[in-house]
């Protein structure tokens, strides 16, 4: 049994050809073929077969997802292409409530006859389990939406961009790194398109076309004489966009000690800059452990938000549904209902948002047909809400779902998954330079690195990509071997300020893992640079 709580795409050197997060039974296809969607009328007719069969077999509720999941993965190292893979995964997942209990079945066979059989299997699973069911499933109402659709607002579809163009861009990227003194580079473009059709016995028929992209590289530098090696990865992040993310725009660049990027990424400029930083990192001073004020760039802070805010506010964790795997939460329904649980200080305003443009979590409707929305989780430091699905809403007194249901493919059952969870920028004007100039003894951390947090989300440890020492308000050079440890509530109560919205950016991941069998969810987390006072920093260097 795998125990990876966060299925993260990293360390590409150890097998860039492994296609992370792809269905093992995915069908490899020609990219051109991928562009032909299935006719909506046909999907509706197939969906009705499932819904009618489920009802006739005794289901009180049923939904079906007809999914076509396309992935393209182009991977290179140095001057060679390691692999180009196009996959398609097509099939249906049918979920029912029968005798008050959930049942689910999925199949890659998509004829009317096969769909009817799969619906029957789902009802049989529900009935077998109803013998050991506790209280019956209670769904928050959701009125039927009729026939509706939603599309990611992309400007250039990655699946229409010739493979040749992607290969050339990656090999050019690699060439810049090698010319700049890198020992090795792995680079890749990973593009995703989820074409999913949802229908339920509530009378909703929802057609959605969702895109995501993640261009990335990882540079390794070796010093043979000392036997040391070090790496830095790209400043890119997975986005709910398509090839338009790879079209550089001046207004998307955030200047500073290292250039960072908003909605448009310049891979060629980034690789040049980052290659030079690997040398600096290798020669950097090993950190003196102790208390520091840490200044965290959004390219780093997204992961701390994800682990310490996103996960503990998931209602399934709070209630105990994840107790056997990802864990529970230090938060509780009582703490929510008290309306005074002090999660952080007044600087801390955190929202859940399934509408945010270009984010990984943005869709029109969730995987149980609920229109997406935005809501507060932490307001001026106080816990004000959780993340819920239809069968959970009543447990926290909500009369509608927050639209947090997601399944990674047609083959998997949908359940509560994290929406985008983001720290709101500070209201007062403050740049990163303004923030740093008031720090006496600190570390400025850019990029995400090693990450670990306990099963109730108290104690965490994070590394990073680049660490800069701050002395008396000025950057004093790079450090290495840095990780910080803290406790969620102490950390967010030590927030010494958040920069204004001009610095706001998204970070995120394709592969947030939860559930059994484990499923991946793509999610973004936005923030501006933020300061946390008196955080415990450890030195991670060892001798073996």
């Amino acid at each position, binding site marked *: *049994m795998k*125990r990876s709580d966060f299925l993260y795409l990293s360390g590409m*050197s150890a097998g860039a050809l492994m296609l992370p997060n792809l269905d*093992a*039974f*995915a*069908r*490899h*296809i*020609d990219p051109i073929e991928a562009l032909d969607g299935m006719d909506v009328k046909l999907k509706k007719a197939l969906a009705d077969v499932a819904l009618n069969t489920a009802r006739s077999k005794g289901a009180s509720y049923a939904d079906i997802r007809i999914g076509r999941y396309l992935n393209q993965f182009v991977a290179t190292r140095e001057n*060679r*292409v*390691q692999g180009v893979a*196009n*996959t398609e995964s097509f099939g249906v997942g049918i979920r029912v409530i029968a005798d008050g209990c*959930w*049942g*689910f079945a*999925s*199949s*890659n066979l998509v004829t009317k006859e096969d769909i009817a059989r799969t619906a029957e*299997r*789902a009802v049989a*699973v529900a009935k*077998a389990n109803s*013998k*050991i*069911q*506790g*209280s019956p499933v209670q769904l928050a109402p959701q009125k039927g939406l009729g026939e509706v659709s939603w599309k990611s607002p992309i400007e250039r579809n990655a699946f229409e961009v010739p*493979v040749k163009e992607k290969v050339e861009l990656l090999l050019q990227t690699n060439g810049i790194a090698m010319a700049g003194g890198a020992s090795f580079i792995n680079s890749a473009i990973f593009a995703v398109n989820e074409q999913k059709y949802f229908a339920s016995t509530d009378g909703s028929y929802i057609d959605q076309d969702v895109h995501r992209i993640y261009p990335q590289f990882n540079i390794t530098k*070796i010093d*043979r004489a*000392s*036997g040391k*090696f*070090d*790496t830095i990865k790209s400043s890119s992040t997975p986005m709910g966009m398509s090839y338009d993310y790879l079209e550089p725009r001046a207004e998307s660049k955030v200047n500073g000690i290292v250039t960072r990027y908003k909605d448009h990424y310049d891979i060629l400029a980034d690789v040049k800059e980052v290659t030079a930083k690997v040398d600096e990192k290798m020669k950097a001073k090993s950190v003196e452990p102790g208390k520091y004020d840490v200044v965290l760039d959004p390219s780093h802070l997204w992961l701390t938000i994800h682990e310490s805010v996103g996960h503990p506010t998931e209602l399934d964790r709070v209630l105990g549904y*994840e*107790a*056997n*795997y990802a864990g529970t939460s230090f938060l509780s329904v009582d703490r929510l209902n008290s309306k005074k649980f002090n999660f952080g200080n007044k600087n801390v305003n955190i929202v859940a948002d399934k509408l945010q443009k270009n984010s990984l979590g943005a869709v029109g409707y969730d995987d149980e047909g609920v229109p997406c929305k935005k809501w507060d989780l932490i307001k001026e430091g106080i816990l004000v809400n959780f993340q819920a699905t239809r069968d959970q809403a009543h447990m926290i007194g909500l009369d509608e779902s927050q639209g947090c249901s997601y399944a990674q493919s047609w083959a998997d059952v949908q359940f509560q998954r994290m929406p985008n969870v983001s720290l709101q920028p500070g209201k007062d004007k403050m740049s990163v330079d303004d923030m740093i100039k008031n720090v006496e003894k600190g570390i400025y951390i850019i990029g995400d690195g*090693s990450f*670990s947090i*306990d*099963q*109730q989300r108290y*104690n965490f*440890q994070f590394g990073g990509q680049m660490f800069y020492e701050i002395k008396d308000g000025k950057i004093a050079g790079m450090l290495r*071997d840095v990780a910080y440890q803290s*406790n969620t509530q102490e950390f967010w109560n030590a927030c010494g300020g958040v920069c204004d919205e001009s610095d706001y950016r998204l970070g995120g991941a394709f592969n947030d893992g939860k559930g*059994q*069998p484990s499923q991946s969810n793509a999610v973004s987390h936005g923030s501006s640079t933020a300061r946390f006072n008196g955080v*415990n920093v*450890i030195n*991670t*260097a*060892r*001798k*073996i």
Partner: protein
Amino acid sequence: MAILTKEEAQAILKKALSYSKAEECEVSLQGNEGGNIRYARNAVSTAGDISTMSLGISSTFAKKTGTATINEFDDASLEKVVRRSEELAQLAPANPEYVSLEGPKTFKDSKTYNATTAAVNPDIRAEAVLKSLNVAKEAKLEAAGFLENTNSFRAIMNSKGLFAYNKDTDVSFSVTTRNQAGTGSGYAEQSYNDVSKLDTLLLTKIAAGKANGSAGARAIEPGKYTVILEPLAVSGMLSYMFNGFDARSAEEGRNFMSKKGGGTRLNEQLFGENINIYSDPFHPDLPGNTWNGDGLPQERTQWVEKGMVKKLAYSRYWAQQKNVQPQPSARSMILEGGNSSLEDLIKSTEKGILVTRLWYIRMVDPQTVLLTGLTRDGTFYIENGKIAFPVKNFRFNESPIIMLNNVEAMGKPQRSENMMVPPMKIRDFTFSSLSDAV
């Protein structure tokens, strides 16, 4: 039916190959039937049933390879997928690392299939979970768990005449029990290829014992301690190390097996002399396939002997570059232990900490394989050979390389995740902070 016999699989693969016009062509076929049931708060939460089969084909012309897959198996579909892979091959850039396919071979039969496990259905799953729920309810604990069974087959064939077929079954069960106050938590898990070995009642009792025993944990100072790691904690630590047993990345200078000045640390005294690690697809408690996806046989392989790494994995490409035989990568590792029981290890310990399992383990520094993570679901202080009291969970920062130099005693190996490992008594294990998590 997603599970084909050897003859049925062979017929489909032969048919697919008969359409090939490529210089080299390989075809693989795999099918899977399985189901799962998940429960929490003492009731079923989700359950599912999956059935699928797929064929993949790779065609190569002048080191240009195209791959396509399909899940329909009539003649027209098979011919279509072959043509599609050939078209993709013509579009692909040449791969300088392409190595000509393996020729025909005879593989030994594996022990991975069990008919009883293959026959598991939703009712059997529900019944096994009911036993677990009853234990939890009697103990006034809240249970959350997961039971999953799979029945699968895989076959490969290539244009050089290679053919291999294997059937595999597996069942895995895990359970967490927590007390009502949320102050105690216990866990147990086991996987088998033979479902008749699975005892959900016994495993839930073990988890319940840990839940009740861990309630009211005391905080003790983090620092270096002698620890007794149960098998789940051991496999968690070791899994990160085996990626380093790769010749290419070691020789390229980018893993812990890389040697200062160049070359590898093969045959160096990297661990204590009491450490021996091997893999063996014929091990009765951890059976594995006898061939890998490249068509290479999997044999018993001694990776570590008396604390020295003796073998590194060589891909077919890297083996050709280095003029050595290819060595399939490490999988299903077995760490030889001793004859002591877990109780013996506790009895022999004056002061120490018993760790049930480790959680959220991540690599901090690949240079030294420094890992961080936390103890979970039952951590206990040992004094004068006995469990004295439960302690609060710790975060650790430790490297398995250092840990395997500090092994004082080992028990009998048992299956833990995809390994066989013993409980281990280890000195100077580094805990760096406390966690409030239960």
